[in-house]
């Protein structure tokens, strides 16, 4: 079920009413309702994979109970014992074994569904290159929706239990609600058990301000996705897939990639806003996933603002265990490359994503090694309406670097990406793209101006419509104007890009 569909517009009010009017007396009942709604939501796409979601959830829950936290051990800096003391008669190996089981099974599921054919093709190519005659045995594997998000969330629970950051819960319904929570099940934000699970264990009461803010955030998310991202996507696809006359030139690629850059932001951050807003209607707070990344002044700041849930996940579960920044220079380089390459590979089974990750690593590393990766931690142009010349230049450069890296994200293979880049850098050919109606450009430009204008004005706040005029008439006019724009100016319906991850 897509958020931007009639089915969801019918589904959500029903869930909302049952959640607050029928199930509100009992937390367990509310959580059971969330589980049922989540399974309907996911099953609407393909009911066959419900078993996989259920298995992954119950497996993680079971491992959490079985393993528990790691035995107490001295903290490396203070010497004090960290973690619970082991119960008498408990097996010290069990917690670690359970974590490893979780890692193997969850990553195994992910690798099978997402990477099997890729690895097989690469191995076969290598063997053929070495003179062996190997055959490809490609399985027609359907990628379950949101598998990367779901498995990471399950994995983080078992690791957090092992670390003693959270106690394993016996309440399996609350755990199922946490692990299959429909607003963030298929495209994030990737939640942590320490943040989300306690909210399901505690009673919830309806909060008017939170519900209104949630509706506003959803409205903004729909605008970003349906008006901006979908319109950008139409134009980007026409140009980058060579479907219009005049595509294939340097300037045309710049235009296409500009549209894609805005599309991916509008699409993904729009989805996150809808997910977070929808969740707030149910009294649950999800973590912020985007903090206006295209206003970043350097790549380090970009990665603190883009897909925050994923980058913090990799930081906490990969980067820091590898030593993080508290090690010698070469290990820091290794750790940085590792995290960016894995992050790239997480996005898809293609060399283009790995190259994309490597490019970002190469741009990030100088800042890290020069210890300038935390220079820009505040809001751009704080207290001022416009950025300074220096900030403007920094934002432009960062945006351009990110745009050029997106070429590898969008292109079907590395060769095509390099060919596009070559055309873009040499600016070969002119810019005369025929076959695209003027109204499309006007809609697009209008949507982009509104998007960046509103977000710039509200860059201090969690989402674009957080702060509005106090006049009720003005607020309602804005809501209605955005809603009409969503209905009238929306692009052709596109699925969310990050569903494929």
């Amino acid at each position: 079920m897509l958020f931007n569909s009639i089915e969801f517009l019918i589904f959500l009010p029903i869930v909302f009413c049952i959640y607050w009017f029928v199930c509100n007396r009992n937390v367990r009942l509310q959580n059971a309702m969330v589980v049922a709604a989540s399974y309907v939501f996911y099953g609407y796409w393909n009911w066959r994979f419900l078993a996989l979601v259920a298995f992954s959830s119950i497996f993680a829950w079971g491992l959490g109970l079985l393993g528990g936290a790691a035995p107490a051990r001295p903290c490396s800096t203070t010497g004090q014992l960290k973690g619970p003391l082991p119960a008498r008669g408990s097996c010290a190996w069990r917690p670690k074994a359970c974590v490893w089981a979780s890692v193997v099974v969850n990553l195994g599921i992910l690798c099978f569904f997402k990477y099997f054919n890729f690895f097989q093709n690469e191995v076969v190519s290598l063997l053929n290159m070495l003179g062996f005659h190997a055959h490809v045995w490609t399985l027609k594997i359907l990628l379950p929706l949101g598998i990367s998000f779901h498995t990471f969330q399950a994995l983080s629970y078992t690791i957090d239990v092992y670390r003693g950051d959270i106690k394993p819960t016996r309440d399996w319904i609350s755990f199922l609600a946490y692990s299959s929570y429909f607003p963030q099940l298929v495209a994030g934000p990737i939640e942590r058990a320490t943040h989300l699970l306690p909210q399901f264990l505690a009673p919830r009461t309806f909060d008017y301000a939170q519900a209104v803010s949630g509706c506003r955030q959803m409205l903004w998310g729909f605008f970003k996705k349906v008006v901006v991202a979908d319109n950008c996507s139409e134009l980007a696809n026409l140009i980058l897939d060579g479907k219009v006359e005049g595509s294939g030139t340097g300037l045309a690629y710049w235009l296409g990639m500009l549209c894609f850059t805005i599309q991916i932001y509008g699409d993904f951050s729009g989805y996150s806003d809808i997910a977070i807003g929808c969740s707030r209607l149910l009294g649950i707070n999800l973590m912020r996933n985007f903090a206006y990344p295209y206003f970043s002044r350097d790549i380090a700041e970009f990665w603190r603002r883009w897909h925050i849930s994923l980058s913090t996940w990799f930081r906490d579960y990969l980067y820091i265990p590898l030593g993080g920044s508290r090690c010698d220079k070469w290990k820091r380089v290794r750790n940085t490359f590792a995290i960016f390459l894995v992050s790239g590979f997480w996005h898809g089974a293609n060399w283009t994503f790995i190259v994309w990750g490597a490019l970002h690593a190469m741009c990030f590393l100088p800042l890290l090694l020069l210890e300038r990766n935390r220079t820009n931690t505040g809001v751009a142009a704080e207290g001022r309406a416009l950025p300074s010349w220096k900030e403007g230049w920094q934002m432009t450069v960062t945006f351009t670097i990110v745009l050029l890296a997106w070429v590898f994200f969008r292109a079907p293979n590395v060769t095509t990406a390099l060919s596009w880049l070559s055309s873009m850098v040499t600016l070969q050919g002119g810019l005369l793209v025929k076959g695209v109606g003027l109204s499309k450009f006007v809609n697009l430009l209008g949507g982009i101006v509104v998007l960046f204008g509103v977000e710039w004005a509200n860059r201090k706040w969690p989402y674009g419509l957080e702060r509005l005029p106090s006049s009720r008439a003005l607020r309602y006019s804005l809501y209605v104007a955005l809603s009409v724009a969503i209905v009238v100016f929306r692009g052709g319906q596109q699925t969310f890009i990050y569903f494929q991850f």
Partner: protein
Amino acid sequence: MKKFGVNFLIFAVLLACCLAAFILVTVLSFKSINNMSFRVDADTVIVGHSMPECAVDDSLLSGVLNWSSSGEGHYISYYKIRRLLERNPNIRYVVCSFSPWGDEDVVRLDKDYCYGLGCILPFLRLSDFKDLPRIRVLAWEKALRDYWTLWMTKPFGAVQLSAWGHYLGRKQCNVDKDRRYAEKVVCDQKTFKPTRHIRLIQQVCAAHGAKLILLQTPVYDKSRWFADVSWIHAKYFSDIEYWDFGSLELPKECFSDINHLNETGAHAFTKRFESKLTDLRSAAK
């Protein structure tokens, strides 16, 4: 909770009113701006889907207007023809594309979209709804938006959706890349049901003194693409004149894909079409 419900209801009512006002303004404005009257002296009009749209270059002909539109089913053509004949009494010949698709097939092709529905919205009467195939709610919604886009982009008489004229790449020849080239698409004679709208088109033409001609434009490989619709004509519409150019031999360079001509092909075919039309006009005199 009560306050939230009341405020949400206020918002919903305001939104419904705004959307209703928007629809009304759009319908009224289109009716006044585009009433389907010709601005040139033409006695022949071509309607139908992408095949005649790409095949006949009306700028090379006199007295002919090609108002075909990609994806147009016969039921859309019917309402278009009806309106055209009401507004242009000089029309003598209506050339309509002939395809094996029933109306339900056309609607089913893209469940949430009906090609051409937007441009005929202002001309539909209440009594027409019983003849329409089942169209989903989303398709009606998209038709309204198409109609609004039409008004915004071409307010002075165009009936084609703005994007359709170019999607085939007039200068290209992509026959070998056309995935459908590998498929054999046939029409099952046992299950086929002819569209009733061809008869309705015939009736409305007769009522306005115009002659209906069914047209099949050239296809690259008749054995692959179900261009062999002559049996349908013979069985169901033998009383209607049929210009079957499906077997016309044109080189591969004339085709944009297996069933659409490119610019080169259109120029070659237009000459053939003109010759046939001239003969028809002469015979009528």
